[in-house]
């Protein structure tokens, strides 16, 4: 199948056009991606569950519908892969955890249904930090995923498999989840686009919860046009999610190709400190300069409580997680320890063996901060500071339309470099977690390579439910950045 060789390197909108023009078929596209996965995934290790047969069957069915002149939807024939915390009725949903290995969900998440209804061809499930807890995907109980740009480095996390799969052309689009940066940070590390929409923009029904008030589903794409394409499908109110917002969803493709001369960009001074690596800073400065050249106004803004974000995050997220993960007890599904003779043993042995170290650490932390006598000092205090963080954003957005920051303080670090120092690992989220705490949307877009050939990411944060402006600014940058970020050196 030599003619399919280059299909996997194309963007989703290019594939869509090639399919509609009759240049290729959905089966050829799927096959091209499956070939690519066969080629590189032994090195990248992004996939946990690959749905080869299923993907080809679905693609075949789509080709038949196209041949009949039907319109199978905006994502017809586009190969899409999902983080392992999306509930799917095909294959397994394991959250890269031992406790949920081989779990076959009896239901399908809302976003998964939307993808299928839009004609997407689902390729399988992607690696992640166990239950989305981590920043390197090293907390997967199955395997580590490797950064396609440097096999010795982490892809970031927790959606490391999703970021790596798109960067390595193993999926046209991937969906992940972002609780404190779990989409944007790996997107930055792997050199692709990753967006965390506004909290409430995308239904969480069917996303295995980590921290319910922070979790949000979002896409990884190869370019901004693909971002608009997938956002048009996944956004919108869901009657199964009480926290999904009942607001109209604009056509995000209308944000493409627009001017930014009326846009004011805020640069929060608290982000540009000594902790920021000089090279990363230079990349973001250059990217902002591109937008300035396009007529955007650039001002300094202040997010005074930025420095407290990590502390707030590491109280609220573990607290919610401690309750969310209590259900994994070996009764209705999941791992049950064979030696359990009493109910208490059943819980204790199954959980202690089923959960990895990081997950247990966060359950312990979350249980502690909620326990009798500590609630006010930790949880309530954190909720109050969280309100201050949101207020910071509200005030900053009175002065500007978007806020631009680096996505991460450094480029991708090496495997095993931080795994034994949880606090250092947590500090990796320093630029991303405040968007989760405030519930605002943010995207990470590649803004060049470091001298050592690693991607750098620029974060564009928008007002609540104003993903339109983010996409508009991101697309203006992408069109005008004047360089091709290229492909990772996997060949």
């Amino acid at each position, binding site marked *: 199948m030599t003619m399919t060789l280059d299909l996997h390197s194309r963007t989703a909108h290019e594939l869509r056009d090639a399919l509609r023009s009759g240049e290729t078929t959905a089966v050829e596209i799927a096959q091209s991606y499956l070939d690519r996965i066969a080629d590189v995934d032994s090195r990248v290790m992004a996939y946990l569950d690959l749905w080869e047969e299923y993907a080809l069957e679905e693609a075949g069915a789509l080709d038949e519908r196209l041949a009949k002149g039907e319109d199978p939807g905006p994502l017809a024939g586009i190969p899409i892969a999902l983080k392992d*915390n*999306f*509930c799917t009725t095909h294959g397994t*949903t394991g*959250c890269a955890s031992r406790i*949920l290995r081989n*779990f076959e*969900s*009896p*239901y399908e*998440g809302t976003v998964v249904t939307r993808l299928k209804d839009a004609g997407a061809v689902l390729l399988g499930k992607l690696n992640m930090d166990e239950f989305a807890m981590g920043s390197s995907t090293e907390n997967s109980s199955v395997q580590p995923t490797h950064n396609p740009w440097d096999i010795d480095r982490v892809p970031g996390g927790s959606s490391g498999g999703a970021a790596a799969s798109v960067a390595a052309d193993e999926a046209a689009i991937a969906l992940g989840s972002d609780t404190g940066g779990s989409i944007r940070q790996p997107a930055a590390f792997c050199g692709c686009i990753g967006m965390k929409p506004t909290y409430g923009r995308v239904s*969480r*029904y*069917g*996303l*295995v*919860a980590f*921290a*319910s*008030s922070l979790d949000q589903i979002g896409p990884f794409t190869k370019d901004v046009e693909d971002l608009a394409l997938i956002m048009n499908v996944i956004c919108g109110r869901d*009657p*199964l*999610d*009480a*926290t999904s917002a009942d607001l109209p969803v604009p056509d995000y493709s209308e944000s493409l190709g627009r001017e930014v001369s009326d846009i004011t960009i805020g640069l929060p001074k608290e982000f540009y400190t000594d902790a920021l690596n000089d090279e990363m800073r230079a990349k973001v400065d250059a990217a902002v300069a591109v937008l300035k050249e396009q007529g955007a106004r650039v001002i300094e803004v202040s997010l005074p409580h930025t420095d407290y974000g990590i502390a707030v995050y590491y109280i609220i997220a573990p*607290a*919610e997680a*401690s*309750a969310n993960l*209590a*259900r*994994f*007890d070996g*009764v*209705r*599904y999941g791992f049950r320890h064979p030696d359990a003779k009493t*109910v208490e043993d059943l*819980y204790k042995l199954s959980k202690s063996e089923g959960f990895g170290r990081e997950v247990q650490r966060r359950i312990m932390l979350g*249980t502690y901060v*909620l*326990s*009798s006598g500590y*609630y006010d000092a930790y*949880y309530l205090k954190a909720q109050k500071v969280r309100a201050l963080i949101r207020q910071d954003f509200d005030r900053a957005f009175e002065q500007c339309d978007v806020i631009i920051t680096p996505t991460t303080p450094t480029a991708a670090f090496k495997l095993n470099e931080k795994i034994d120092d949880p606090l250092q690992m947590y500090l990796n989220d320093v630029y991303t977690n405040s968007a989760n705490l405030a519930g605002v949307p943010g995207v990470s877009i590649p803004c060049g390579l470091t001298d050592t050939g690693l991607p750098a990411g620029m974060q564009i944060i928008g007002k609540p439910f104003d993903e339109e402006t983010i996409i508009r600014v991101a697309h203006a940058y992408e069109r005008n950045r004047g360089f091709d970020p290229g492909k990772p050196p996997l060949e």
Partner: protein
Amino acid sequence: MEYEPVIGMEVHVEISTKSKVFCGCANEFDAPPNTHVCPICLGMPGVLPMLNRAMVEASIAVGLALDCTISRWSKMDRKNYFYPDQSKNYQISQYDLPLCHDGHLDIEVGGETRRIRIRRAHMEEDTARNVHTLGSGESGVDFNRCGVPLLEIVTEPDLHSAEEAHAYLTALKQILEYLDVSDCNMEEGSLRAEPNISIRPKGSEELGTKSEVKNIASFSGVQKAIEFEIRRHKKILDEGGAVQQETRGWDADKGLTIGQRLKESAHDYRYFPEPDLVPIVVDQAWEDTIRETLPELPLPRRARIREAYALSEFDAGVITATKPMADFYEATLSAGAPPKQAANWLMGDFQALLSDSKTEIQENKISPEQLAEMIALIEDATISGKIAKDLLAEMFDTGKDPKALVEEKGLVQISDAGELEAMIREVMESHPGPVADFRSGKHKAKGFLVGQVMKLTKGKGNPQLVNKILDEELEKT
């Protein structure tokens, strides 16, 4: 020493919505195990709860009926504990901001009215059922009940005897039934009462240490358990001991409570606001809309019915014991029946027919209009009261109109004087002995003759007329 018991009551009542509180599974009792379950109530990974509007509205209605303040702003919380009757190992409940709070319920004990303060009423989800009788030595979990809407109603410690506790539960159940929000069936567990009991020296203001009793399956069980606990506390205190704060289980067979061994940490529930659900805001308009749908409640209805229809206190109480009964009664009056007669029939023969066949009044075949029609037939002397008893039974079985049955069975009373006179003469001729007896002063003999006449008329002779003519005939010599 003389002690005064101080009792508070926690009642969990299952609200009879069509679907469960957070998912679309049917809210039905007694289905085969694990057939009314879905990913949401099974606590599958990734699911989210969605609050049932009908549960919120039923809870507000209960709150209003108990004169509670309805919280303008409230929320759901997670109550964390591990137990195999849980699907998520947390229960979605309400912690510091219950939907309803600070109400009261008036009860009558020994002819006196006492006001019992309601501390709070909050929404939560019911738990799964554990069965221990599978034979395998293991326990089974049935999640059908998991997620059934539950309203927890908590009083202040305002009850002072087992009798008062019983009166409180009876009054509460009556209100819940009037509101038609629950089956209130203690055996099926749709109403569960958990009293907490302490005692203190009479006259003391300080509260003693309390024990809480669970697993009680009837109102009389509650009364017995409270009496047992009062005796147990007294004995401990009289012997110089100290009551332990604990939860105890009621053993109905043995008639005693047994301490449940609990770890201290079992009560560290780590409540926090449920992030998957949004706040519940009840504005005045919503509250008013629900208030307008409230039926007339038992106490005011009893007073009104007693006065309006000149019934005795006792009769008014029986008539308004349940809302369907009171509704039936008033509908019968609307169809033209005189109040006293309608009350007598309803409380007497009709009630007996219902009890004997274990039929609910709202499910029986006789309509209020039919009952009124039957009473009218007695009033206009078409049938006798005796015939009416048989007629009512026939109506109860068939649902047929009384007039139609009277015609069909030829039950019309014989009130034709000529016809009766002929029959009376016939009886007198064939029974000369009793006639002679009567005439010689043995007046008791008349009873026999009346009986014979009624026998001849097959019970249809108009009794007054029969008596009158017979008297006239016997006077003749």
